[in-house]
């Protein structure tokens, strides 16, 4: 059974090899004239200012969490939609319960003001 995965392993090894060769060639034959500007982190061609790790507003995290909530909803709804005829009424009820619970979460987030940006 594991033999079926052998081609995958070969592709993986070739990919690794190609990457290593490309980097090795550049390292061996490429000219190296480093300047301060060149060794600085790349920031769209601008002169970098400030550290790369900056504090983000906590509000983004809230948005991200809400996004995950509805993202997962979509995953479930789509997989349910593909088999909606086979699962029938029990599936519909289960989906209604699931969506109902999500709507409760939505209501809670809304009333708590999580959707307002100020």
């Amino acid at each position: 059974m594991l033999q079926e995965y052998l081609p995958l392993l070969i592709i993986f090894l070739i990919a690794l090899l190609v990457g290593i060769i490309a980097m090795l060639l550049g390292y061996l034959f490429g000219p190296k004239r480093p300047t301060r500007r060149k060794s600085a982190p790349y920031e769209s061609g601008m002169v970098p200012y400030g550290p790369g790790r900056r504090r983000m507003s906590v509000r983004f995290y809230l948005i991200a969490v809400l996004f995950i909530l509805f993202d997962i909803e979509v995953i479930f709804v789509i997989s349910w939609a593909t088999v909606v005829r086979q699962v029938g009424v029990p599936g519909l009820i289960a989906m209604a319960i699931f969506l109902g619970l999500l709507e409760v979460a939505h209501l809670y987030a809304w009333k708590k003001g999580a959707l307002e940006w100020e």
Partner: protein
Amino acid sequence: MSINDFLAILPVLVVLVTGVLVMVADVFLPEGRKGIAALLSGLGLAAGLGAALAAVPSTGTAFAGMVVADGFSLFLDALFAAVGLVGIGLAYDYFKRMRLQRGEYYTLLLFSIGGMMLMGHANDLVMFFLALELLSIPLYILSGFFRARLASQEAALKYFLLGAFSSGFVLYGIAMVFGGTASINLEGIVAAVRDGSANLTFLLVGAALLVVGFAFKVSAVPFHAWTPDVYEGAPSPLTGFMSSATKAAGFAALIRLLLVVFPALGENLAPVVSGLAALTMIAGNLIALVQTNIKRLLAYSSIAHAGYLLIGLVAVNSSAAGDAVAAMLFYLVGYAIANLGAWSVVVAAEQAEGRGLELEDYSGLGRKYPWLGVAMLVFMLSFIGVPLTLGFWGKLYLFRVALESGLFGLAVIGIAASLVSAYYYLRVVVYMFFRDGEGVARRDVWLNLIAIGSAAAVVLMALVPGDLLQVAAQAVLRVP
């Protein structure tokens, strides 16, 4: 999916639906009327308790074998609902006093209780994991409920990190068991072991990892490091609830796993669990001796009691299995009652900003508030296992089971550890009655009711221990 599936886990559903209702109701409640959330939660838990008590103990599986309903799970449903009710009673006045009365506390508490109940019903390793997370995640949040208090934040983070760590053990254990038996359903695992198609090495590794994961939850030494810090930093009413209920949930999972799923591994696992039991009893009691903070003292006391309970777990795979489960359930009930009572006294004596928690602060409290003092005396005697208390009978039944199944060493360690524990338990009483101090306690109806009611229960139920043991003995597990 039929109506019978839902009926099988009716108490769980009642509690979880109440949790959702309280969450919605809370956002519409005006500031200052948040007590209604507590009332709603109490009603929901009472309904859940009623559903558990009224249910006919049948044995069967539901949701395609994912959950099981049997005497054991019903017993635990009732226990968790009852502990939850007391937990709300502990919290109500406390959070009002601390100006932190928020509906979320009750919502999360209900979700956690739902997870604990589900743990008793789990008949599938994935359900065990789901129940574990459902009971743990709300507790992580609740431990940090005092957002502005550094100790509370530390407790939440520590509990979360170590809890996630232990969940990892459980997951690896599930993966190994699946690798060994090609099934995550308890019936499938048992069948694979029976017909010899299981890889016992994988199964043993998986079982060991699962035991480690749940040993974290019951705070067995050496997996106890989080317990004192979390118990100290978390709000006191939560700690009271957590130390009574989470331990029962962890043992529920361990009992079902060791009794139903891994009886074939009994000989391999018994030395490990025995070692855990001995270590937990010795270390828990010895470290408790030097504690000066009441919350840390009770935390180490709860570790020590997990050690006594682990003796029963060793005996689960012996010929006295039925007696062992009954004795453990009896002990869990007795411990929960005394523990909730003791925490009600702690909650009553706690002042703002976490003051009033040192043993010094308890000086003279017993003489000033004789009812609280006498109640605390009863709880401490029950913890030690002095005759005429529920704790005595709990230990008697556990040690009897240990002797029946030939665990003389563990029984001797248990008795010796109980003797040592008398020192630190009685020290609390000595401070309360024989020292002079300025200590003040809150006179709150609910707290007094819990303290006096629990003390009465500890003494009165000790008069008819056989009846309670009879009830516990009927809480049998479904063995496929």
